[in-house]
């Protein structure tokens, strides 16, 4: 460029810009000591700041008892998590850190863009992996499965399918949906017949309980045949509608095998809970269970914020898309959820989740307090995210969608490939800001009795040897929240700067 210009005799030479006043001294004079009154204000404020800072420094060195933090480090970090299992939250933290670092690297290099989709999947799967790691889990052994199947065939009366009323219809609903999905999208005659077989089996399994009568709400007698039939019909209808959509997108067949396998596992779990069988052939615990009620400290704060962020993002996007749907039922449902949740303070939602939620759920289905808090936070964040994402959706010009449709992309692909990427890119700063406030809002769970960082710090101040260390403790809390929040904002600013390249 420059050589071409230098060689071109016709272009007049450019002048250099005027040199302004520069340097620290010039800045000081200009902004702090420009007039007499400005100088006076500078001195008064400077003296005040100096005095405050000096007193604070003296307090924190001479008076403050920082032992309350240093001796309690383990409790503050991991709370009451069993000492022998501490490697698990540590591994979880390391995994998350690794994932974040990898994501950062992958998104920085255009050459690695092929790795972006696997990274996205890893993030989507991470809540499951994290909760398995932290909660622990058991795997059924081959013997347990065999044992269960034996009981299944020989002693059906022992099955929970007959005990817990909802299991049979629920399993039937699932299988009916998959069966009719299979029927609607399969082509071969054998494939269709094979797809119907599990449905027949499930109907047969439900047959014994269909003759029973249970007492429903308000003591009304309900013949079990009614919910069973309703479940079958509902499942069938859902599967058929889905099947029509799927057959239009014209995907391969591989997914169907996976769908059936997944359904098999889920149904087996619903029906048996893997708990039927002789007690001496118990499932093998892979990681011993640590109930979430034992999660506390910084670990709980991090678990709450990470899971709320990861779960609320997809939910928020779905709510935003639902709000733009052409189907009134979906649209109004999404509008309703978003507006109601946004109209209620987070603390109210957290109380509702702790107190009201159990009232709506079946007696034998108790959800842990931590999970309830996560559910509340997720719902709250998702509603706010939905509004942010909706703004992004509106920022995408309609012509973009028309161009995508004109290319022959289906509505689903238009949304996924053209609408969402542009919409989300436009609102990344707002989304990340929302995530920072989720992190800070997790401190509210200490009010509903969970021992997150604030909760555990509160209990530390009541230790006999550290009575009267409230200042130290809450200063530490403020510092922790500030460092993490500031780190998140700094990262999000860099991300914005990076994504600004090549957008338009």
């Amino acid at each position: 460029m420059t050589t071409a210009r230098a060689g071109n005799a016709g272009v007049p030479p450019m002048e250099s810009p005027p040199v302004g006043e520069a340097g620290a001294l010039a800045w000081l004079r200009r902004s702090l000591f420009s007039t007499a009154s400005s100088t006076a204000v500078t001195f008064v404020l400077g003296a005040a700041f100096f005095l405050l800072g000096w007193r604070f420094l003296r307090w924190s060195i001479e008076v403050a008892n920082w032992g309350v933090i240093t001796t309690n480090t383990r409790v503050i970090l991991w709370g009451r998590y069993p000492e022998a299992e501490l490697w698990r939250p540590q591994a979880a933290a390391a995994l998350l850190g690794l994932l974040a670092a990898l994501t950062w690297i992958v998104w920085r290099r255009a050459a690695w863009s092929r790795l972006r989709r696997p990274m996205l999947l890893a993030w989507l799967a991470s809540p499951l992996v994290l909760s398995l790691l932290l909660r622990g889990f058991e795997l059924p052994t081959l013997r347990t499965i065999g044992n269960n199947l034996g009981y299944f065939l020989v002693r059906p009366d022992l099955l929970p399918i007959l005990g817990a009323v909802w299991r049979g219809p629920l399993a039937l609903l699932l299988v009916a949906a998959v069966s009719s999905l299979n029927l609607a999208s399969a082509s071969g005659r054998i494939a269709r017949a094979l797809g119907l077989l599990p449905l027949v089996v499930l109907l047969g399994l439900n047959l014994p309980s269909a003759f029973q009568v249970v007492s429903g709400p308000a003591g009304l007698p309900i013949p079990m045949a009614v919910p069973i039939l309703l479940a079958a019909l509902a499942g069938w209808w859902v599967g058929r509608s889905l099947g029509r959509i799927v057959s239009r997108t014209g995907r391969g067949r591989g997914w169907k095998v996976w769908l059936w396998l997944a359904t098999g596992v889920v149904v087996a779990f619903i029906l048996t809970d893997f708990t039927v069988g002789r007690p001496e052939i118990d499932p093998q615990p892979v990681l011993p269970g640590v109930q979430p009620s034992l999660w506390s400290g910084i670990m709980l704060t991090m678990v709450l914020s990470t899971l709320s962020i990861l779960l609320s993002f997809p939910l928020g996007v779905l709510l935003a898309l639902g709000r733009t749907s052409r189907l009134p039922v979906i649209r109004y449902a999404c509008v309703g959820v978003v507006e109601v949740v946004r109209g209620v303070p987070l603390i109210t939602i957290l109380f509702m989740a702790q107190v009201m939620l159990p009232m709506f759920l079946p007696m034998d289905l108790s959800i842990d307090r931590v999970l309830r808090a996560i559910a509340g936070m997720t719902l709250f964040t998702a509603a706010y995210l939905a509004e942010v994402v909706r703004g992004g959706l509106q920022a995408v010009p309609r012509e973009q969608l028309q161009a995508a449709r004109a290319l022959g992309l289906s509505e689903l692909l238009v949304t996924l490939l053209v609408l969402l990427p542009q919409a989300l890119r436009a609102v990344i700063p707002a989304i990340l800001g929302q995530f920072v406030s989720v992190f800070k809002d997790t401190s509210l769970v200490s009010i509903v009795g969970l021992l997150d960082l604030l909760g555990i710090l509160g209990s530390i101040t009541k230790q006999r040897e550290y009575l009267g260390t409230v200042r130290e403790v809450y200063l530490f809390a403020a510092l922790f929240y500030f460092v993490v929040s500031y780190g998140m904002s700094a990262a999000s600013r860099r991300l914005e700067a990076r994504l600004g390249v090549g957008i338009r």
Partner: protein
Amino acid sequence: MTDVARIDTGNDIIVCEDVKKWFGEFQALRGVSLRVRRGEVLVIAGPSGSGKSTFIRTINRLEEHQAGRITVDGIELTHDVRNIAAIRSEIGMVFQQFNLFPHLTVMQNLTLAPIWARRWPQARAEAKALELLERVGIPEQAQKYPGQLSGGQQQRVAIARALAMEPRIMLFDEPTSALDPEMIQEVLDVMKELAHTGITMVVITHEMGFAREVADRICFFDFGLLVEIGPPNEFFNNPRHERTKLFLSQILHS
């Protein structure tokens, strides 16, 4: 694409019969009947607001017509999603504002639809994309983003993107109206080259030089009606309607 019922429309690839369209109370199309032959280059002219843009958008269902009948390559345009998909796969469209996807590179713009809608392997889609970029004269820009290209280059990419789906029909909605004057010719050259390949083209344009040189027929739209249609010679030298004469005198002497 074979599961869609087709009607035999002979040598006509697009058949429109009495197409009507309203925006609220305003009637944008007041009954347009038009048959486009296979391989024909049809230029549509007319003042702004005459319904010509709405009309070609009804052909691939970017706008829905409310009365009349549209048949594309024997497939009737109905509410059936399968028919719409089949018709859109036969039609490529180029817009006034290019409408390239700003978040994707030129190469990704060209391969998006073939990979996702046609399920081509990536290598095949990229080979096709490179071939098309060479045809429109900008293979070296494949890895850039649309925002880094000039208007003329963007419009040529948009033409290549539409061609990547191997359409039989190309619709152009004022492809040169948003361009700086020095870039109009490069786009017109690509369109001329395209016209000689035998693809059916329906072009809305004010470039009467292009129309005179390339068009098989020219039609004139006004007030949502097809006023006049004929070969270029007749259209320019011997227009029958007063409205056409007035329009031509305005557009040719400005």
